[in-house]
């Protein structure tokens, strides 16, 4: 990972599970544990969307969760980047023909970075967060 100006501050991630199979969840948590250790870059999971720079969204958004996803998105302060983690959030994946989905995620909220895989490896997730840093940087430059 090349040092970018964006690393002059810590990136906080809020993980939003919209009804995923837990596969992405455990890989996201695996990605923050010692083997991968992104905390050395200041990247960490936070407990509230109000503290977050990045929304990491997993799962195919079942109907019951749609409103919550919109609320969490609204609660996240701007500028923000939304990462869609996992194939089912991207396209529905194996759940493509389900009757109970309002997804994929980009039908509900705008997505900036997609991480493919079912589930993506922790390395891929970290790569996605790095992409998000670059995007956030551009957003901040644009906003300034």
């Amino acid at each position, binding site marked *: 990972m090349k040092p970018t100006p964006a690393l002059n501050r810590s990136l906080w991630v809020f993980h*939003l*599970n*919209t*009804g*995923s*199979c*837990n*596969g*992405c*969840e*455990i*890989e996201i*948590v*695996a990605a923050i*544990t*010692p*083997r991968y250790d992104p905390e050395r870059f200041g990247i960490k999971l936070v*407990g*509230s969307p109000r503290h977050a720079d990045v929304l990491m969204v997993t*799962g*195919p958004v*079942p*109907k*019951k*969760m749609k409103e*919550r996803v919109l609320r*969490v998105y609204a609660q996240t302060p701007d500028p923000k980047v939304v990462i869609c983690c996992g194939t*089912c959030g991207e396209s529905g*994946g*194996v*759940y493509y*023909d*389900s*009757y*109970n*989905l309002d997804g994929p995620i980009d039908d509900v909220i705008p997505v900036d970075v997609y991480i493919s895989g*079912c*589930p993506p*490896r922790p390395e891929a997730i970290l790569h996605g967060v790095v992409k998000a840093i670059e995007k956030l940087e551009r957003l901040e430059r644009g906003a300034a």
Partner: protein
Amino acid sequence: MSDTKKDSTYTVPIGPIHPALKEPVMFTFQINGEVVESVDFSPGQTHRGIEWMGMRRNPAQIVHLTDRICGICGVTHSICFARAVEQIMDIQVPERGDYIRTIVAELERIQSHLLWAGVAAHELGFDSLFHLAWRVREESMDVIELITGNRVNYGIVQVGGVRRDIVEEQFPRIQQCLTYYRDLADKLLHLFLHDRTIMMRCRDTGVLSYEDALHLCVVGPTARASGVRKDVRVDYPYCAYGDLSIDPVLPDQLLDEIRGDVYDRIVVRVLEVVQSVDIIQQCLDNMPPGEITWEQKIAKLLLAFKKAKGEAVGRHEAPRGEALHYVKMTGRESPYAWKVKASSYSNLISWPVMLKGEQIADIPIIVASIDPCLSCTDRVAIVRDGERSILSKEELHRLSVEKTRRLQHG
């Protein structure tokens, strides 16, 4: 305080999105001071309609869908489903296939229990232990990746056997993993069981008595921690478990008495990691040679599905307890009926009993102590509830208008 007790009860909603919860579920706590008086919970946020989708696919496709019922106990559901279909079709899985299934299932148990141990430590605020548990878990993830090709959602089970063999070159690596965990067992037991903080927080917290455990039909480590001697691997042997020597793990293997509290659940799970290492060792030592699957060619398998008629139940002892799949085939390619009963479904019901009378601060560890897996559980049972909530808005209005019109014209 006591005379205003009745008025001082207040409601605390937690969820579906809450930092204490790893998955979406909605809790409503009635709280009096610091004490929980009653609990209600409403799952269903992760309902994806998997069974419905399954009835439109053929069993060779469904085994990969079953992986995605739950990312943590993926092979559990695949084994359950495959075993149900195999019983309908009278397929004898080759012995080597059964042994490989057993090895993967036990590796899954190791990673799942270590994952849980980490989460439990995190809920107690003991984050260094959380990081330690997840670091040692990576060893089992590496071996799972070596055997199946993926860290999560292995896709190794196919109806009739498994899709990948364990070759000779892989044995030393698996052996190395087993040695690693064997050396680590004492350290894990010491860290989790002799730590004063864990002892203080978990002893006599979230008690589920033997009677309640029987009454509520809880399964897996939750039941065994309350002293219920119940383990599908022993009671109803399948795969290679019939050939192996295993005993249900009860907390009195290590402690003098069984109290059925959170601490006992930690004891059971840590001991089960040790047991799983032993089971994999037995499998490696007695691995029979031969085929790994009943039929390699998917086209022939699909043809066989079209002839399958009958119904069967596939069971497996998941890391969280007994999982059960019911399948009915009626001579079409896709099943006529498919019902999934995940292990957490039986265990969730014990929350209200465990949480009653406990303090707010103990909620996270008690909720986590049964190792809930909601993506497993949110099956068809919840659909009606989901529809009702839709009905309550536009739909209800439309129905109401229609009824008015009907009455006017009638």
